[in-house]
């Protein structure tokens, strides 16, 4: 009895498997336990709450809603704006990915951190900043697309950049020496090799944009609506659970369709020549200046809204002032239960918990996904784990309210629920960052290890783990940042009195008075600093990781 390690089912005849039947059995039990743990978490903290709230809503069904043309306009706009935002994020993110992966420039680590900053910023303040910067009072679909892309460029830059950095340059050099122009080389050699990472990024960004909420509310001005904002209105404002459930089902269908397309697209991804170490960077030459210039332009575009928020934190009626920052040591005249500094600590603390949970789940899932011999089962599990990104945060949050009290120790008002809900969103991101790297590991390396007498576990440890280590650290960093930004259901939970930075921003900005507003923006700036520091720390880990060997 042998276990085929290859996800693509390449010939394993030449492989020698060491291990008795007992060992095989033990492994199988082990993998099944991993799969069960991951799916169990997904079941308890996602499937159950969502199904419960849908069930309650559909007990008085509202089929008429599906017949209304307005519903389908909603679907069209949701998908359309998400597709446009994803395309823009991709176009803007690829030059950055190239810059980070291939080009030697000073201060790159800082730039990498900077690109991540938009991701954590509260959508309300970013939406307001975009309104101010674009000088638009009218509802504006273009502004929605722009803001969505602003938030998500980092996903593309980081996911694609990670793979690009390890892509063997020699294939490109060969193409160039055979007479292919730079564009053609990119199109025919580089892009196909990057495909798994590109599709991973596209899938994540698309899901994020299709459930984008705050941006659509602020910039859509009531004229532009998405399924997400409509589900929010019906659930939270109108308590029309029936209508909300119907729309949630439509959203679920759309997300499943998108995931299916993504899965097929990923499957066509070619195995690239991915090397264990990063290809050395170098100064740009010739045509490489074009993407470098483009990356510069994107960086500038990212900096402008960020700078606008920082400026806002420093401006008072009477000119420049540090009052907002001084106020961080207080509670904003009672608006917060704790000081701004304490909120920063709460953020870091919660994000840390969410990250380790997500890493644990994500890596277990990756191990199962890479190992599974049943391709369809792996795809199904992969898609199931992606669902939390595409299902309305309100649906999940309100689902928690009517289910989690049935578990021991009512989690609904527990501080633990926040990191748990965050882990749900981060786990699929971990998978999307790590899995492409694992899948593009040259099977011949594994075969060689096997030939040399390594068992499947040892192969995993000696071959896959070092190769994936950098990706794992990247994923950890990314997850931490997502948790800092508080995505998903946490906005709809009954929160304990330990506000994190994004919560502090929303509580401060909901009050009149110059000082509290200035403090809200200072808290935004603090959130940026925490993010940059976190990314820098993780970058340091990355360089020390065994992936370098």
């Amino acid at each position: 009895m042998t276990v085929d390690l290859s996800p693509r089912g390449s010939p394993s005849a030449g492989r020698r498997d060491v291990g008795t039947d007992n060992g095989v059995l033990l492994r199988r039990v082990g993998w099944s336990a991993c799969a069960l743990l991951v799916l169990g978490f997904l079941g308890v903290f996602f499937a159950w709450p969502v199904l419960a709230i849908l069930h309650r809503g559909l007990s008085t069904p509202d089929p008429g809603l599906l017949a209304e043309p307005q519903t389908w306009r909603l679907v069209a706009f949701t998908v359309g704006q998400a597709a446009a935002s994803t395309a823009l994020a991709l176009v803007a993110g690829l030059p950055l990915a190239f810059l980070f992966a291939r080009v030697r420039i000073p201060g790159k680590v800082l730039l990498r951190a900077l690109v991540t900053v938009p991701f954590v910023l509260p959508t309300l303040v970013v939406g307001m900043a975009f309104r101010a910067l674009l000088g638009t009072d009218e509802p504006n679909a273009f502004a929605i697309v722009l803001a969505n892309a602003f938030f998500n460029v980092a996903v593309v830059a980081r996911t694609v950049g990670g793979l690009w950095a390890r892509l063997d340059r020699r294939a490109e050099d060969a193409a160039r020496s055979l007479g292919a122009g730079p564009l053609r080389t990119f199109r025919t050699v580089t892009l196909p090799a990057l495909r798994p990472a590109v599709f991973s990024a596209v899938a994540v960004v698309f899901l994020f944009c299709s459930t984008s909420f705050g941006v659509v509310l602020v910039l859509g001005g009531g004229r532009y609506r998405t399924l997400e904002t409509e589900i929010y209105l019906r659930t939270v404002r109108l308590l029309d659970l029936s209508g909300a459930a119907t729309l949630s089902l439509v959203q679920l269908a759309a997300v499943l369709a998108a995931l299916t397309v993504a899965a097929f697209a990923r499957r066509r991804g070619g195995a690239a020549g991915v090397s264990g170490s990063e290809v050395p960077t170098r100064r740009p030459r010739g045509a490489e200046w074009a993407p470098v210039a483009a990356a510069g332009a994107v960086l500038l575009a990212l900096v402008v809204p960020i700078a606008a928020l920082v400026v806002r934190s420093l401006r008072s009626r009477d000119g420049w002032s540090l009052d907002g920052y001084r106020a961080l040591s207080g509670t904003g005249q009672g608006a917060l239960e704790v000081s701004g500094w304490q909120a920063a600590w709460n953020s870091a603390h919660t994000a840390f918990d969410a990250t380790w949970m997500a890493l644990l789940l994500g890596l277990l899932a990756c191990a199962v996904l890479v190992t599974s011999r049943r391709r369809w089962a792996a795809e199904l599990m992969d898609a199931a784990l992606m669902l939390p990104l595409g299902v309305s945060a309100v649906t999940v949050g309100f689902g928690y309210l009517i289910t989690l009290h049935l578990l021991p120790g009512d989690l609904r008002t527990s501080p633990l629920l926040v990191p748990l809900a965050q882990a749900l969103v981060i786990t699929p991101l971990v998978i999307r960052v790590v899995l492409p790297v694992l899948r593009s590991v040259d099977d011949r390396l594994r075969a060689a290890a096997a030939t040399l007498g390594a068992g499947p576990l040892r192969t995993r440890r000696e071959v896959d783990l070092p190769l994936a280590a950098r990706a794992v650290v990247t994923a950890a960093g990314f997850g931490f940042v997502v948790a800092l930004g508080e995505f998903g259901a946490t906005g709809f939970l009954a929160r304990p009195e330990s506000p994190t930075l994004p919560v502090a921003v929303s509580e401060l900005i909901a009050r009149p008075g110059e000082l509290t507003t200035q403090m809200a923006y200072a808290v935004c700036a603090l959130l940026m600093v925490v993010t940059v520091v976190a990314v820098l720390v993780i970058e340091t880990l990355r360089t020390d990781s065994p992936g370098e060997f």
Partner: protein
Amino acid sequence: MKRHTARWTRAAVALAGVLSVAGCSLIGTDGGSADSGTVTLVTHDSFAISDEARESFERESGYELRVRKTGDAGALTNELVLTKDAPIGDVAFGVDSTFYSRALDADVFVPYRPRGSASIPVKYAVADTRLTPIDAGDVCVNIDKRWFAEHDVEPPRNLRDLTEPRYRGLFAVPSPETSSPGLAFLLNTVATFGPDQGWKNYWSRLVDNDVRVSSSWQEAYNQDFSGSSGSGQRPIVLSYASSPAAEVDDQGRARTEALLDTCYRQVEYAGVLRGAEHPKAARELMDFLLSWTFQSQVPEQMYVYPTVLGVELPENWERVAPRPEDSTELDPRRVEDNRAEWISQWRELTRR
């Protein structure tokens, strides 16, 4: 076989290590379990209490006060309705006049008349003992006084004035769909101009007069309004009667003013949740919410007016943010029956 086992053991040990570190970090968060010495208050995001008031309650009652915040008044009410069979706390504070009937219809509260309810004046009092009025936050049109002085324009006085051409493009208001004060303003127009065609005509004229509708009070007040720190373009905004108290300059003068003939009375209620785990503590907390200690700090903590007779406002409030006397109101029953339809009609009216 042995080798495999050893490897699994190693992996298990490593995992256990990670989990224990992580476990420590989780334990660091304040305890999630509800013991008998606590009382949980479920409320909206704008709730705030001074340290002194909280300590006073905890010292005198012996209960630890836990606060759980969620969304705004609407979100809070709907969450209470949804969790009726297994409430997420003992007392809920923050159901407002707009959602009053929904909470009562769903029967999420049990009757209780807290000590001190006799001192609630008639204009706030309600017959039903399941909810007790705790504070009032009147929603009023605010103006930027300096803008009107500089531009030598007479400020508007009432809602009707806002449709006049000279105030064209000057008014910012949050949407009734997504904002609690926005909804109060819509109800104000219904109360002022009539439930049939009156309020719709008014809104049509507002739209023609280039009213700016944004998704939240935060946007309208902090970004569109010229009188706040956001320095926006519009000198008229929908906010609260109390907002000018937050816009006072060094000389103690308010830069903004609430127009007292444009107000809609929004009362916030509290009640003991049906099925509360700590009903006795819940009743003590209700008593506390009407006590002088709590009532006297609500203006500065939450920018609202106390409901108990004789509780004084902070010193400068009488001058810069006096309590409106003639606010409009709608019967909560009518609000509950028509809210969804009014909002949907409003949506049609303002779609451009």
